[in-house]
């Protein structure tokens, strides 16, 4: 039981990381009906930026927000340069472009920092705290706290500020928003910036657990896909809940299902994606898509 609870807690911690990246995917999906295959790679690149800052002697707690700001700017830049020319292109084109972007960012990171895995410092102590017989690592608690703050910040921004309202309006009703004076294209850029920053947070949290290298996010993005799909790909709340469920599920499956073990955890992610898409394509919180023909 104790072991089970510990697994659940660390599952929630990794789930928080998946939730952040899944939220980034949902933000872009809502903005333009597109799954950004480059989200993980952009997060990895931002994490390398943080790594460089920390390597220059900047403390983690300064490097973290600075990286978020840089990632925000980078997301806007990417949208302006790469996505804007094809904003109205068919989904096939857009998906191929984001895949190209993923490959490009991956290669650039390899170019700049090489392919040797590096350890990324964790700001939290490696010790554990005894909570009623359950040993919970400070690192897990720290990750849960950081992702909680990030997710809360996004929620407040989207639901309780004018910018958030405009952002949502531009995403859901671009034509009407344009008539009301909203600069829709820049709102899309803002959405990309926001997604990039949220994704960067997930990258900086996962890097101390895995090792930092250009292919670090390849498995994390699959879990984030699973989380986003499970939550219903247009629902931010769904992404968070989906992330937590995926995190706990793969942790428990890895520990208790001997067939899965450590090396088939990724296959559990695939199974979640395929299962949800086939059985409940709208996920837990998505609305049924009604298409007019």
């Amino acid at each position, binding site marked *: 039981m104790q072991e089970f609870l510990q697994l659940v807690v660390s599952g929630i911690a990794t789930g928080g990381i998946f939730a952040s990246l899944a939220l980034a995917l949902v933000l872009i999906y809502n903005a333009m009906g*597109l*799954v950004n295959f480059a989200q993980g790679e952009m997060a990895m690149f931002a994490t390398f930026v943080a790594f460089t800052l920390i390597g220059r002697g900047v403390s983690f707690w300064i490097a973290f927000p600075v990286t978020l700001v840089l990632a925000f700017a980078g997301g806007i830049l990417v949208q302006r340069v790469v996505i804007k020319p094809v904003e109205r292109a068919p989904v096939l084109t857009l*998906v*191929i472009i984001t895949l190209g972007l993923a*490959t490009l960012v991956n*290669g650039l990171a*390899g170019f700049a920092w090489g392919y040797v895995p590096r350890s990324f410092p964790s700001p939290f102590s490696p010790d554990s705290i005894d909570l009623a017989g359950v040993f919970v690592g400070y690192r897990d608690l720290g990750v849960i706290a950081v992702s909680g703050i990030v997710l809360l910040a996004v929620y407040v921004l989207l639901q309780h500020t004018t910018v958030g309202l405009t952002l949502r309006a531009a995403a859901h009703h671009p034509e009407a928003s344009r008539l009301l004076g909203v600069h829709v294209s820049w709102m899309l850029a803002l959405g990309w910036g926001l997604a990039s920053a949220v994704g960067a947070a997930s990258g900086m949290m996962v890097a101390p657990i895995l090792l930092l290298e250009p292919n670090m996010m*390849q498995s994390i993005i699959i879990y984030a896909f699973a989380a986003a799909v499970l939550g219903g790909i247009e629902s931010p709340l769904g992404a968070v809940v989906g992330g937590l469920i995926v995190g706990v599920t793969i942790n428990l499956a890895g520990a208790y299902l001997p067939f899965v073990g450590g090396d088939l955890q990724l296959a559990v992610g*695939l199974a979640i994606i*395929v299962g949800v898409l086939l059985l409940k394509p709208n996920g837990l919180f998505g609305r049924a898509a009604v298409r007019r023909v």
Partner: protein
Amino acid sequence: MQRIRVAQPRYWLVGVVVLFFLGFPTVISSFLASEWAQALILAIAIMGLNILVGYSGQLSLGHGAFMALGAYVSAILAHHYKMDYLVTIPIAGLTTGLVGFLFGIPALRLSALYLALATFALAVVSPSLIKRPAGLTGGVQGILVVQPDPPATASSVFAALTGTAMTSDQWIYYVTLFCAVVLFWVAWNVVRHRPGRAMRAIRDGEVAAAASGVNVAGFKTLAFALSAFYAGVAGSLYGLSTGFVSPDTFPVSLSIQLLVGVVVGGLASIPGPLVGAISAYFLPIESSQWVPSQAWIPTQIVTTVKNAGPAVSYGVILILIMIFAPNGLVGLARTGYAALNRRLRGAGDRETGHTAAESQTVSEPD
């Protein structure tokens, strides 16, 4: 809706290309022949992906996984059951085609975006799935494939032409060329007849196609099965050509490479996959040699460029082609050729845009 334009096929051009590929190995080294064999293998897989993406409009990012399946079917049959490898190639194709058909049924329910997502996940996961039944697949080590010696007749003809004995690499090249010619011919026949028209109709408007009596589900799964068949044959040949199959022979980047090939060559085009495969195969090899191996350049930089060059060039090319030339290199060549033609034949009638010599489009015979 766009009118279906079918230009008269240029048989002489096809003949020239086939003759070129037939004669090519007699003038290049055996090593280069094996590189070109791999490019042709990619062309087969890309042709398959092109049927799926270009003609039927379903995006698969997991065709590397289908190639892996084909390769492992052949390798297992040849290694565990001592079958002749060449006999296993069609078996690998049919098995993979069947799996593709089964995969195509649930894929019917998915939108293009979700299908891309699921197949991408499949591509990422497949290496770890292959490793699991280690007794059958050889686990991380994979399976060695014995490369066949060329048969006596082929060898003596080759020796008479070049004066050197045929190596097994050169024999594999010819086996690959044979498969490529047959499969390109099949694809060309499929896409210009009823199934191809049905697929294009589905791609351009599913509801309209269904309303016109096209069996949407049937042709979409047919496209999946056919596409997987091509990938299976390509995978089988890939194992033959590299001499072994292992889980890491089929990483996600292989699926990306196939996608690059389709896009660079030109979606929904028959010569496209060949052009695309040659670009997608030789580009990473060339781009990893951007940095000349001079003594004053630190080796660390050279190795980094070697590792990162392919990814950077793939990414840039995918993005640039999609933004500026969505019809790929073949599309560019066609537009260029048409423009040149117009220039040579005079401006024609500006009002209607028709040249005096002939009408621009040839309507389909049936």
